[in-house]
């Protein structure tokens, strides 16, 4: 691990790729703020999708079991589509709030990245003494 972040394979449940953020030797305040924010957002994303995807699998299995009890051993695509619609409708509010929350967090990361870049640029210009 040199001086860049490294990206891992996608998580089997949340499908998101974990990132090990590189910590420089002399980390400035802006860099630290950005790194912590990115860790926080990644954790938040991972938690949301883990619980959501687990719930999906669980409810789908329950639905299949329910159909099996009614005497349908393997559900066809049309029967499954009823579950897909139902699951989507039930989670409308969840996705809506998550969506806009994510937009906000994503924008705040970019803002911090911008700050870091400006800070780095200023540090770089300080190298040249006129």
């Amino acid at each position, binding site marked *: 691990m040199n001086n860049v972040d490294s990206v891992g394979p996608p998580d089997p449940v949340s499908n998101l790729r974990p990132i090990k953020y590189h910590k420089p030797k002399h980390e400035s305040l802006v860099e630290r703020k950005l790194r912590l924010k990115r860790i926080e957002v990644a954790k938040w994303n991972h938690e949301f999708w883990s619980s959501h995807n687990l719930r999906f699998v669980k409810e789908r299995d329950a639905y299949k079991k329910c159909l099996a009890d009614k005497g349908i051993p393997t559900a066809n695509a049309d029967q499954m589509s009823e579950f897909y*619609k139902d699951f989507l409708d039930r989670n409308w509010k969840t996705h809506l709030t998550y969506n806009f929350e994510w937009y906000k967090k994503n924008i705040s990361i970019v803002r911090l990245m911008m700050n870091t870049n400006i800070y780095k640029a200023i540090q770089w210009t300080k190298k040249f003494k006129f």
Partner: protein
Amino acid sequence: MYHLVRAIQRDGFQIKNTYTCLTCSFIQRQISQSTLKPKSHVVATIAVDKSLPILDVRQPPTVETVSNANEKVNSDKEWTESRIHLKDLHQHYLKLSKSRLTTLVVVTTMAGYAMAPAPFDLTTFILCSAGTGLVSGAANSINQYHEVPFDAQMSRTKNRVLVRSILTPIHALTFAAVSGSLGLVTLYYGVNPTTAALGATNLFLYTSIYTPMKRISILNTWVGSVVGAIPPLMGWAGCTGGVIDSGGLLLAGLLYAWQFPHFNALSWNLRPDYSRAGYRMMSVTNPGLCRRTALRYTIGIFGLCCAAPMCDLTNIYFSITVAPLNAYFMYLAWKFHQKSDSKTSRNLFRFSLIHLPALMILLFVNKHSLWSGNSKPKENSEMITVNKDEKIISSIFKTPASL
């Protein structure tokens, strides 16, 4: 030998792709494990073949391809550093701007330009296409910036550059800002303000309305279709100098209508993924409507193609030659409507990919003024001479008056 390795490699990936398209991530893992088997098979065949007398020259490439294959497989299993190599950067940018989609957008813009009744100007044509392409690239990068966790959920999109964290979000946005402003400036100064305004509208519509709307309302497909219909209008406006008449609107209408059979068929097989990732696509929330709109709009395309000669867009032969193409499109949509499964939807989707280029070629070949002795430009030139005469006459009459 080399070809054998390549073929197995290719087949291995193809199997993986087709399965991941159809199944959700739960089943995916089992399949991806099974796709690892061909790899070991390849290594085994090579080990056997090495004992046979083979030319030494051929050996290095085979070893290389195997190591490449290993790298490709491993990249999904191991930790990788997100370091960008300068020589790969253009590839990342092409992926960021969804090069295939952008190509389609540029081609429809070119079609719009070519179909417009004003005389063809090569410089404006190139500037118009390049500007549209740049704006489309910007729109796609902003879209991907917003969609990272959602894209990660779907097998169709899980390998995009931002999902893999190859580029940082700010890098993607900087690319979007540069390419977007460059595109809009090109359209504004190189083409005309109307085209630039249409481009800016589309950029806003796609990134700020359509993208969040996917999780909000079923209406997203209609908004997305409007986004698809604007590029030919940009080409049209670029050629005519900002005037959009019935012909341009008809062309936009064709593109608008085409999106429905195309996208509804595509989304039909992705229902499990859409449901889990929260996309309110028609195929999930209202399957009946999804089938009906696909059929309805293929009928709409048929009708619009019949109306094309009336708008002076094409000659009458267009409506005749395009009829079998549209009829078959309607037939496939009808099949999809009657019995919606992965087979009928895939047939409809694949044909939609052939239908659009074929339609555009037929449109151009049967363009109104192409064969009928360039009626429009002639009228224009006559108008100009008449105007000149009038000016001369009026100047003649004016001079004595001023004296």
